[in-house]
């Protein structure tokens, strides 16, 4: 059902499309990291496509509404049509809910491992953006001497090493509208940027306003100090 509108979204992205993505993988860096970081909207859109195609079949993002996706550069129409693709009566006002109608189902189906809600996962893990990337690309064969629990996979980035989620990404699991090569690593990086946005949608605005505020208050401090000295000097005369 969700795969139905993935081409729809791809078409939508084509109208919003930009040039090929810059290479953020070698070395690995995210536009959202750092003091002056901002959300890379193109990467976040690609990440949204990966999220809806792959992750949304098990995970929810309850704090996100479909209308919030407009902040990534989608038009209200495109956001509404994504919501429509998931056949929700509420339209754009609906949240990105769990695909499982019965809340107990996923835990019982996956042996007690409930797929966590991803709305704020980047804020909930240390160095969240990088953690998501390393988790998605961290599946390897178990080293010698490690006994795998049944139904678990070895992941170098997961605390304890044994994760119940099977490797979700593979090359060309999605087709990006802007022509970026959809390697598994690229998909992981894009989904990490999308989830960074999801956890902190105001990151770009915050840094932008912050820079202006700091510059302004530096200016105000200088002016206030000069003014104070002038007043005190005149009082001594």
């Amino acid at each position, binding site marked *: 059902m969700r795969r139905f509108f993935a081409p729809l979204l791809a078409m939508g992205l084509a109208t919003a499309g930009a040039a090929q993505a810059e290479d953020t993988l070698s070395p690995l860096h995210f536009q959202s990291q750092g003091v002056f970081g901002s959300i890379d909207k193109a990467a976040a859109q690609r990440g949204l496509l990966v999220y809806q195609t792959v992750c949304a079949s098990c995970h929810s993002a309850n704090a996100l509404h479909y209308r919030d996706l407009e902040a990534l550069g989608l038009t209200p129409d495109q956001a509404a049509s994504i919501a429509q693709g998931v056949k929700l009566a509420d*339209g754009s006002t609906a949240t990105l809910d769990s695909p499982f109608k019965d809340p107990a189902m996923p835990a019982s189906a996956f042996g007690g491992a409930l797929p966590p809600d991803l709305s704020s996962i980047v804020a909930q893990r240390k160095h969240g953006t990088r953690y998501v990337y390393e988790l998605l690309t961290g599946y390897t064969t178990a080293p010698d001497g490690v006994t795998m629990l049944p139904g678990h996979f070895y992941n170098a980035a997961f605390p304890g090493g044994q994760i119940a989620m099977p490797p979700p990404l593979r090359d060309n699991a999605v087709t990006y509208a802007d022509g970026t090569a959809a390697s598994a690593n690229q998909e992981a990086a894009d989904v990490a940027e999308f989830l960074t946005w999801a956890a902190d949608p105001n990151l770009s605005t915050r840094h932008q306003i912050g820079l202006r505020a700091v510059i*302004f208050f530096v200016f105000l401090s200088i002016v206030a100090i000069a003014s104070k000295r002038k007043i005190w000097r005149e009082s001594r005369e």
Partner: protein
Amino acid sequence: MAETAATDALSHGVDSRRGFLTILTGAASAVAAGSIVWPLINALNPDARSEASTRMIVDVADIAENTAKTVQWAGLPIYIRKLTAKQIADAQAVMTSTLPDPAEFTARVPAGYQNYVVVVGLNTGTPCALEGNAPADPRGDYDGWLCPCDGSQYDPLGRVRSGPAKKNLAIPRFKFINAAQIQFG
């Protein structure tokens, strides 16, 4: 607080010797105070969730001809009806001067989508919900809506035709954002 007191005091007879620097400081402090306080005031404007429900989007493509869909908006029941060609022709043929509350066909239907009628589903006489959304409902003599409380009858455009009610059904603020969806507000 401190900055606003400064600007007040400075505007009340500042010594002209003080001059440019103090006025600059005062002005900059006022700008700072304003831009710090403004987000607090703006935060009390309707939040995104209220705005979304005020600017609700409804799908209308799935409404069958001669049927009406009911939605809730701004605490009111809204009926969205799709008209048949015969109802449109009949409605256009009516002499508006004979109506209790005269209204032209073009004033009752949205431009460009003239087979849709969107009205507030409350009788304008005794306040009461109306019947007539499904084709099988009792609709009165004019194939529109009927009020079960006081017997007022409306035509498919929501114009009052007979009964104690004197005014046509109210039309909410809306527009077609594409051929399949309307947005209120």
